[in-house]
């Protein structure tokens, strides 16, 4: 039995290439090709992910070795050294200000902590939080949305804060609950504000604080039912 007879040359070739990439045996040029394909071809990325899953138990053999403290200090320097230099962002206004988004997150976490601390939490029948808010943003992307979920009206309202959409593309909204596959909530209508209705199955998960994410998709939305483009913004819903 040859591979070509078994699965057709195309699938076999790509699948083997994915396996070789995951195993780590490819020369540098071919690794670069594979890595580009992972970023641009969803099908190929899935094959790679599948092999990573198959082979991941082998990683149990890696011993744990404590790294020196200097490594984390260097990571922080590289990522956060310029955090203080937010004056340019402040000038760009409240909506694009990092401090504002951080502050919003802190306020949301504080509100959540307060909510959790309230003893009524043991009675899930009571849903005092009619509205949940999420600021959706992602590193390396200028797309920002503010999402407010109104559990009484079963509606997510989205304010398009920043980021432009290329022609022939759409933003699609997803709900992610834990490790489950993202569930599409629909293509986000164009405009500064948009409303998306929420199905009963999704309502409960949103109330429990699922993550909302926005991905870039072909016009009309993902053809596969799963995100095919990059996630350009994400955030979790928290009580106001």
């Amino acid at each position: 039995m040859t591979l070509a007879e078994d699965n057709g040359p195309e699938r076999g070739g790509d699948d083997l290439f994915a396996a070789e990439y995951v195993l780590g045996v490819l020369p540098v040029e071919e690794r670069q090709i594979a890595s580009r394909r992972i970023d641009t071809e969803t099908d190929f990325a899935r094959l790679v992910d599948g092999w990573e899953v198959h082979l991941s138990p082998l990683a149990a053999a890696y011993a744990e070795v404590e790294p020196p403290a200097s490594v984390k200090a260097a990571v922080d320097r590289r990522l956060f050294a310029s955090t203080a230099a937010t004056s340019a962002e402040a000038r760009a206004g409240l909506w694009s200000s990092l401090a504002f988004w951080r502050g919003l997150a802190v306020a949301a976490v504080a509100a959540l902590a307060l909510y959790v601390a309230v003893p009524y939490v043991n009675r899930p029948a009571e849903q005092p939080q009619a509205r949940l808010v999420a600021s959706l943003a992602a590193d390396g992307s200028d797309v920002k949305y503010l999402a407010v979920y109104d559990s009484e009206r079963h509606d997510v309202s989205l304010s398009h804060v920043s980021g432009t959409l290329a022609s022939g593309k759409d933003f699609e909204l997803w709900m992610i609950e834990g490790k489950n596959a993202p569930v599409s909530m629909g293509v986000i209508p164009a405009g500064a504000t948009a409303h998306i209705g929420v199905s009963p199955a999704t309502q409960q998960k949103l109330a429990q604080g699922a993550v909302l994410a926005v991905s870039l998709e072909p016009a009309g939305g993902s053809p596969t039912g799963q995100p095919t483009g990059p996630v350009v913004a994400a955030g979790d819903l928290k009580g106001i």
Partner: protein
Amino acid sequence: MTPQDITKLIVRTSMKDRAAFDLLYRQTSAKLFGVCLRVLNDRGDAEEALQEVFVKIWTKADRFAVSDLSPISWLVAIARNHAIDRVRARRKPAADIDAALDVADPAPGPEAMVVAGDESERIHHCLEELEKDRAAAVRGAYLKGESYAELAERHGVPLNTMRTWLRRSLMKLRECLER
């Protein structure tokens, strides 16, 4: 930390929560450093690689949502792939034998196999269906990130023979894993 806890830390990291990122580092950096050290076989190189790996984790944490991997496996995959890219870009393999002796044997001990649980049985079972030296080549390639060129040299066969050899092993593995 349970896998669910690590998942939460990754999701919170994707939302640029520094406290979550710090905790994620504390919980996982030893494992990821072990990965970098094993592949790169040089402490200084591994330290630099680990830095880059955590910079990647901070910037790409949102991608975790579309992967089928368990959270720790996802992190290990980032570290492994980064370390392999780095070692491949390097001209000659480092001759740092001491660092190599510091780390564990490629074949997982019985404890590691038990800890890894059900899922791992499948790959270990499938590797056992291969001839011994081929299974060892697959394990070694995975853990050390050895290239076709290095494997060919070590086994004393031409590069193309090595590639055919390993591809055949991978096809057999796939057939067994999908059974």
